[in-house]
């Protein structure tokens, strides 16, 4: 074992200089009991900063749209493309973040996409294509996807059941669009609501206890 005469201590490992004072050591090196771990710089922190910056930029650019005029004549191709790019970016970020939990990320994506579509529709003169087509179709697809996922992948109950339940509940919302006459044709909303009610019945049969259990856990005071 090596020795630092300045500090009067033995030094384990293959240090050529004393790790405490930097003086030269005497004696023979011993095997290092600790590994030398190479430096690793955290890419995660950089990624987190970039994510936050891009989210802020997207939110700002969405707000700016409100001041740029709402009529279809004022809503040019550039703005459409810009909104499209922003939306894709948001969707990609959310999908990346939630890739470990399918039901939860499905729900987030659904809410996000529904809000953006409605806003887009509003900006371009409120033709109600969002509420008539986009939102019910997306809800319906999400419900079908979750039902399939659940039966194919045999996911563990728990959080998954909770988020599926929330998605299904969201699928019933288009009934409001129908009742309040916000749609130009009732077919998509009607289909979506029927799908949601059917899967709610299925869920009630299979998973009600799990959902209650999970809710109790999440909301435990």
């Amino acid at each position, binding site marked *: *074992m090596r020795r*630092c005469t300045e*500090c*009067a*201590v*033995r*030094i*384990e*490992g*293959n*240090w*050529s200089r*004393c*790790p*405490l*004072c930097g003086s030269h050591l005497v004696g023979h090196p011993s*095997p290092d*009991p*600790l*590994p*030398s*771990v*190479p*430096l*690793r*710089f*955290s890419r995660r*922190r950089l990624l987190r900063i970039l994510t936050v910056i891009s989210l802020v930029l997207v939110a700002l650019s969405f707000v700016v749209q409100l001041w740029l005029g709402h009529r279809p004549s004022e809503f040019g191709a550039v703005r459409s493309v810009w909104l499209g790019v922003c939306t894709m970016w948001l969707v990609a970020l959310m999908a990346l973040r939630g890739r*470990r*939990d399918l039901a939860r990320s499905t729900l987030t994506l659904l809410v996000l996409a529904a809000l953006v579509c409605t806003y887009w529709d509003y900006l371009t003169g409120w033709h109600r294509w969002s509420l008539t087509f986009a939102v019910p179709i997306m809800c319906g697809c999400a419900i079908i996807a979750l039902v399939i996922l659940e039966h194919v992948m045999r996911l*563990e*109950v*728990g*959080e998954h059941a909770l988020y599926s339940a929330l998605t299904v509940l969201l699928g019933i919302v288009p009934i409001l669009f129908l009742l309040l006459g916000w749609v130009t044709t009732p077919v998509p909303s009607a289909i979506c609501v029927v799908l949601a009610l059917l899967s709610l019945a299925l869920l009630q049969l299979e998973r009600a*206890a*799990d959902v209650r*259990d999970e809710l109790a*856990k*999440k*909301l*435990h*005071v």
Partner: protein
Amino acid sequence: MTRRTWVRLDNASNIFLAARTESDTKVFRLSAEMDAEVDPGMLQEALDAVFARYPLYRAVLRRGVFWYYLQDSDLRPVVEPERRPTCAAIYQDGRRTLLFRVIHHRRRISLEVFHALSDGTGAMWFLSDLLVEYARRRYPAGATDESGRPGEQGDPSASLAADDAASPDTPDAAAEGAAPPSHALETDSFAHYFRRRRPTAFQEAFAEAAAPAALTLAEKAVRAEASADGDTAGASRTPSDADPDRPSRRARIHRVRGTRTPDGRTRAVELTMPASQLLAASKASGASPTMYLTALFMDAVRESSGGLGGARTMSASVPVNLRQFFPSTSARNFFATIRVEHAFSPDGAEAPEEVARALEAEFRPQASAAALAPKVARFIRVERSPLLRIVPRPLKDLILGWLNAASNRKLSLAVSNLGRLRLPEPAASHVRRVLFQVSAARPQFCAISHGDQMTVTFTSPFTQTGHVRAFARSLSARGIDVSVTAARVTEAELEEVAP
């Protein structure tokens, strides 16, 4: 599919989630250095055997609206070679991973634990059992003791008894010989009870093992109160229930600054010394080993900082294992911290021995059941306060984070002494020394001893080792035989060994 057992995370553990940062991961490490290279296959077998007996260690951390909670899982731990810096992060938001890891390098077996799961004492039980299982497999000749069943390796109080329970400050883990109740489970309980639809005995064991120590204690206290009308309530209003932070003295607390390590890892330097030599030196000074080491530490910081400058008061936080005062078998966090401080005179003429005596006089009255009872009572009161319950979890994290930062500003150092680890055979004769270290927000040391080997591991977020040098030199100047192990952290240090 089973419905998972879960237990809400208590406040003592919550603080570790709120206070965790990229460089201070709130992970601690207990290592044992064996007398020969570690065999990973046998270590894995040993881990499997021990894991089945510790339901708490199956837990993953999940987030609810109001609380974090620990939930039972099917995950199995896998031993891995040491590839990360010491005390690397274990829990990452939202990821369901086990809250501990077992790693090995050359002769060392290390157990790293996220502090929200367990405290040093709880982890000592686990490591001790792991070492016994490993030694049984590695040295089969020694595995012929009477009670051959691994689930019941003798009397835990004999295996982990504290050496000098006389000194109240060494929070010797197992002073009370308390072991997790899961010890009593049959070895095959994992296979036997697991994956049943009804709440199984295993799930019940998990819930029991994962219950916060303070609360299980509180329930006991309530029961005792009912039978012995208000004895505990009386105890919690002793005159010593003064504000522990003593805001009376408005001295400026010295805070150690330095250069952060390049990738935020913890800088760890281990000093190994004969326990007998250190005990003799501390006895001669008239202070307990912990306070003696703390005094040397404060003096070392004073010296390496070039005389402290304007802020001449140094304070240290010292965790005290509550199990020695309030018997509890929980492996969860169950400690209180005591704060001691010392104002150095401008001429710097005090010997560390004098400082040690002064610290001892400050520490000893605080480290008693009567003085700590109000603290425990306060923990429990806060835990159960209806106002706190309805605060959403992210907000709780924020508040706890602020509180923690505020108390950090009043601390220069932290020290922790786990006392003596008494390993049962066949582990004891094959373990050369044990080590203990914690990720650090400030210079800190953790001490533990085994046989006659005492290790004091300094950790710090900074690259500077001036205080360790001063500490090591003052030990060697007192005739104590010190050997130093350091991990390389700076670019220059790592370049030396780069292939």
